[in-house]
């Protein structure tokens, strides 16, 4: 089961991220994780939030270019080597990672890695088999 990420197109302009985060704040959206991919002219802001639909609506209504994309999340222990094991598991199975980012959850003190890969099905299978349970949408909502 994939979790959903919001991707927002952001022009490189001062104050633009402030407007986006304020829009989300005003709608009562809690951001769980985020990352910004940057080029010289634009960036893509990626967000994991508690309520995707509400966040999507708030951002579209405010005039932002926003899409929802599937991503895979994996919970790992917050110890040295944990991320390396996940990466090795994917690498060994020939799965290419487009991008990734990570966050630490408050309650279970686990670290979560969010990533986008080329072979979805296979990635889920090898991760589960390798002992890395894949993050479920309802888990994100309850974080």
């Amino acid at each position, binding site marked *: 089961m994939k979790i959903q990420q919001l991707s927002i*197109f952001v022009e490189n302009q001062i104050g633009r991220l402030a407007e986006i985060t304020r829009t989300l704040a005003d709608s009562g959206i809690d951001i769980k994780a985020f990352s910004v991919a940057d*080029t010289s002219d634009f960036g*893509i802001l990626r967000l994991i939030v508690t309520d995707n639909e509400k966040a999507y609506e708030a951002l579209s209504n405010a*005039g932002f*270019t926003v899409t929802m*994309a599937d991503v895979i999340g994996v919970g790992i222990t917050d110890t040295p080597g944990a991320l390396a094991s996940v990466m090795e598991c994917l690498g060994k199975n020939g799965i290419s990672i*487009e*991008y990734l980012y990570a966050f630490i959850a408050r309650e279970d003190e686990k670290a979560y890695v969010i990533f*986008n890969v080329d072979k979805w099905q296979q990635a889920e299978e090898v991760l589960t088999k390798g002992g890395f349970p894949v993050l479920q949408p309802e888990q994100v909502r309850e974080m």
Partner: protein
Amino acid sequence: MRDMGIDPSSIRLRAGFFGAEPWTEEMRQQIQTLLGVKAYDIYGLSETCGPGVAFECTEQNGMHINEDFFYAEVIDPQTGKPLPDGEYGELVFTCFAKQALPLIRYRTRDICALSREKCACGRTFVKMTKPRGRSDDMLIIRGINVFPSQVESVLLSLGMQPNYLLEVDRVNNLDTLTIKIEMTPDMLVGGTVRGLEAIERRVASAMQSTLNISPKIKLVEPKSLPRSEGKATRVIDKRKI
């Protein structure tokens, strides 16, 4: 020439005629200094005879129109009425000697002014200023004619929204064209930088094959391009000519 180790003074060039696209007084100074020549402006259009309609004299302040071949008028592009000398308007030609394709009061779309004041060179032919714009929306970029409507049709052919802005500038005496295009959510599917860069490349190559110049494509946020009274601004020309 400098890179090839050739001394400009060794080639004995005295004068050069430069036309086909607008150039600035600064460029004239540069050419004259670097090449050691007198740089003269020349005006023409392929519908009449190509280059040869008007030339600068040694005074270098306006081009004498060859009035034995061309009758020149400047008109108000809106009303079509002739304007007095010295006023800027659209240049119109009637050709006396053209055969097969006679042109009578042919509208060039070039904006300039005429002067019949006595020229220090002794010639009495009317002088026209360097054209300083167009009465239609045609742009001349690196000598190539570009219409915003061409950009629009390329975008439509790619299934994209025609919300765009052409930004023309001049960097190191070379024209540059940037086409800004407003994003739509379908372009962001996947949410990867690679995906957006692929779109930019696809648009750039389609523009290149239609316009014959290679523009820089820049994706911008929706509704971020200027609109005045509901009508979109299509061109920002930052060149100072």
